[in-house]
């Protein structure tokens, strides 16, 4: 049965948390993609999902911020504290969004609409005091999925409230595009099947959906029909899995308390794993030696891993211990209690039998993350297949974003996709980081050039490097010219050039190119 739920949503939260002013163009960029923007940046055309460079091109004054979930969660604790005045049953799913069941509070405050109105004005005033008016939405509907959609709509409305009457969730959801279900692959298939709205998908029979899309399809079908996203197998655990840690002497700092949390989080995770369960909702209780107590419920879409649990405990601690002085506890943290509130059968993460994710991967991932901490996120890169004609285009360096087992072999396109006119294998091993201008000369010492029809003016016989140290080297063999006219439909990225492969007398081999009448070394076969 659906639980009538109120959802508070701040879509721009990662930006708000940076304490930027509301009229500044700010974007949060993770792994080279925009993940959140400020309204001023959106007005300039910066959208979620853009590459960093495209975002900067659209808005040159864009202020770029690195993502920091800890900061987001710490600042969001103050919002959660505001909502605490209405109900004790606040569930946080991620920084920027929280939910609570409205059954009790709405009776007390005189109905869903007055309650939502109060919550919205309270938060809007709090955010407004730092300049962020109109950044929050409050939605009430049957089930968390519909309420979240309602909250998204409410952000732009005056009053920031959108209440869907009881029993109307399915009707409310039906005009949304299927992409809001949050599964891009499924949305793509449905779209190509001609099912463009959630209502079209919901109209299918359950049996057909299960036959075609399996368990996950059934789950999404339930969402589409406005039935709460909690599968029926989810429920409170049959026996207690509570773990607690008494910290003596009491911890004054977040990191010390978080260290204690790590041990019990591992313990909790192991015990749940042993029963084949995964935690989807977790109650974290923190007590201080002065008797203060902070409880928070954390919800997770999938299953909380042990590091996920520690993260949430740390966010909660951080928000409390380093929060506004009025809410800060007077004593040190003396007790931590983790209560898995809701568990479901773990679908599990199948570790590879041959290879797959191993301990070595975990170790390497940690070391690389540490290096990223030293040098910055962009300093660690991994190869990503892109496809192209030149050696620099086929595979590029993409920022390293942790080790994910499921991304697997499918990263990018295959190396052997057809690219007519590409440079033949073996490919060169070095790409000069700075342009290396050269001259290609014929037997009489005159410059060689390539005509518009792609023919050489004379046989190349010597290469003259610009720096005196290398001087002139004679050519033993050559092939080409291989003309290459790429992206002629786009003025900005259009490139027209011709390549030559050269084997030099000193044993080196080069791939050189002529572009707009001047020769340069494109790549070196080392």
């Amino acid at each position, binding site marked *: 049965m659906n639980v009538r739920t109120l959802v508070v949503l701040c879509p721009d939260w990662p930006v708000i948390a940076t304490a930027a002013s509301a009229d500044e163009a700010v974007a949060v960029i993770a792994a080279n993609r925009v993940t959140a923007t400020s309204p001023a940046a959106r007005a300039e055309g910066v959208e979620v999902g853009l590459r960093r460079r495209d975002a900067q091109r659209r808005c040159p004054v864009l202020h770029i911020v690195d993502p920091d979930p800890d900061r987001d969660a710490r600042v969001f604790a103050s919002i959660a504290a505001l909502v605490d005045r209405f109900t004790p049953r606040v569930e946080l799913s991620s920084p920027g969004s929280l939910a609570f069941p409205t059954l009790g509070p709405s009776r007390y405050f005189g109905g869903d609409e007055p309650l939502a109105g109060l919550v919205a004005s309270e938060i809007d005033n709090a955010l407004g005091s730092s300049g962020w008016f109109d950044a929050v939405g409050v939605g009430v509907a049957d089930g968390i999925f519909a309420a979240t959609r309602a909250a998204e709509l409410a952000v732009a409305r005056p009053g920031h409230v959108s209440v869907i009457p009881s029993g109307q969730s399915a009707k409310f959801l039906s005009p949304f595009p299927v992409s809001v279900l949050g599964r891009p692959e499924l949305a793509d298939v449905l779209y190509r099947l001609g099912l463009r709205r959630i209502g079209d998908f919901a109209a299918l029979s359950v049996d057909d959906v299960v036959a075609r899309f399996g368990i996950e399809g059934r789950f999404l079908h339930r969402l589409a029909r406005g039935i709460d996203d909690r599968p029926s197998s989810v429920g409170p655990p049959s026996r207690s899995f509570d773990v607690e840690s008494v910290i003596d002497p009491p911890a004054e700092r977040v990191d010390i308390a978080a260290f204690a949390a790590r041990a019990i989080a591992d313990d909790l995770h192991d015990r749940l794993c042993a029963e084949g369960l995964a935690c989807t909702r977790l109650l974290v209780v923190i007590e201080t030696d002065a008797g203060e107590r902070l409880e928070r419920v954390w919800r997770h879409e999938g299953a909380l891993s042990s590091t996920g649990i520690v993260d949430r405990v740390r966010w909660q601690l951080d928000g409390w211990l380093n929060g506004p002085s009025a809410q800060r506890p007077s004593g040190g943290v003396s007790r931590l209690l983790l209560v898995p509130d809701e568990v479901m059968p773990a679908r599990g993460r199948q570790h590879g039998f041959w*290879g797959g994710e*191993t301990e*070595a*991967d975990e*170790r*390497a991932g*940690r*070391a*690389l993350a*540490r*290096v990223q901490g*030293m*040098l910055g996120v962009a*300093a*660690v*890169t*991994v*190869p*990503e*297949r892109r496809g192209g004609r030149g*050696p*620099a285009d*086929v*595979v*590029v*360096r993409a920022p*390293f974003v942790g080790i994910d087992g499921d991304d*697997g*072999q499918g*990263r990018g396109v295959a*190396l052997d996709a057809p690219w007519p006119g590409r440079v*033949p*294998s*073996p*490919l*060169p*091993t*070095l*790409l*000069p*980081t700075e342009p290396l201008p050269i001259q290609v000369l014929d037997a009489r010492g005159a410059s060689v050039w390539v005509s518009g029809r792609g023919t*050489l003016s004379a*046989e190349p016989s010597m290469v003259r490097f610009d720096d005196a140290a290398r001087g002139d080297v004679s050519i*033993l*063999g*050559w*092939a*080409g010219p291989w003309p290459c006219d790429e992206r002629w439909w786009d003025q900005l990225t259009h490139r027209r050039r011709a390549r030559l*492969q050269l*084997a030099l007398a*000193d*044993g*080196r*081999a080069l791939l050189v190119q002529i572009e707009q009448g001047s020769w340069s070394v494109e*790549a*070196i*076969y*080392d």
Partner: protein
Amino acid sequence: MVLPAALPSSVVPPSLQELAERIRPVVLARQAVVPVLEPLERLMPDGGLIRGSTITIGGVGATSLALQLSTAASQSGSWVVVVGLNDLAPVAVLEANLNAERIAFIDPGNSGRHVDVLAALIGAVDVIVLDARLSLRPSDGRRLASRLRERGSILIVVSPGGTVNPSLSADLSLTVSDAQWEGLGCGYGHLRSRHVCVGVNGRGRASRTARCELLLPAIDAQVAIAESEREDGTVVAFSR
């Protein structure tokens, strides 16, 4: 166990012999070996990359050789991390059949923190490919070498066409020379394979210099033993 020549085994008291048996390490350093591709085994005095060792590679073709040396390790699940070498083409790494899932490039830029980076990587990844153009102080070199021996990672120092960093004392040093490309005519064909000579010298069992002729890359962009060498067999390589 090899006993000192001054004490023939018959003279050694049995208790001492027993003791020698007992203190012998279970795995000798040269038995902890990471595999290399079959054609490259002849370059290695112990048939593979010894854990905790430093290998320097220089000459024209050094980059290709470094990649090929780490291929077998990468395929058997080891991580390969390249520090520096910003001009290394990522496509060459995949063409050398390294596992794309277990490779990362680190650009220390001019932060001057490459020693810290190396210290963080040693022990966490199996193969570290280091750009010889990154300068190391002799004291750093010694510290890293002892850390390598302790943690069992392998450091491959590459100097594409240049000189090797003198502050790292190599256990094995490979020099690629006499590169000759095949497949390229005057105005036709394309580069297909390269015939190179690889000179090997180093410490311990590798102190005797040896030479090997290889196709690097061979026709299929991999590495192979040069035909000429297979036929006459005159070239000296390590016998095991």
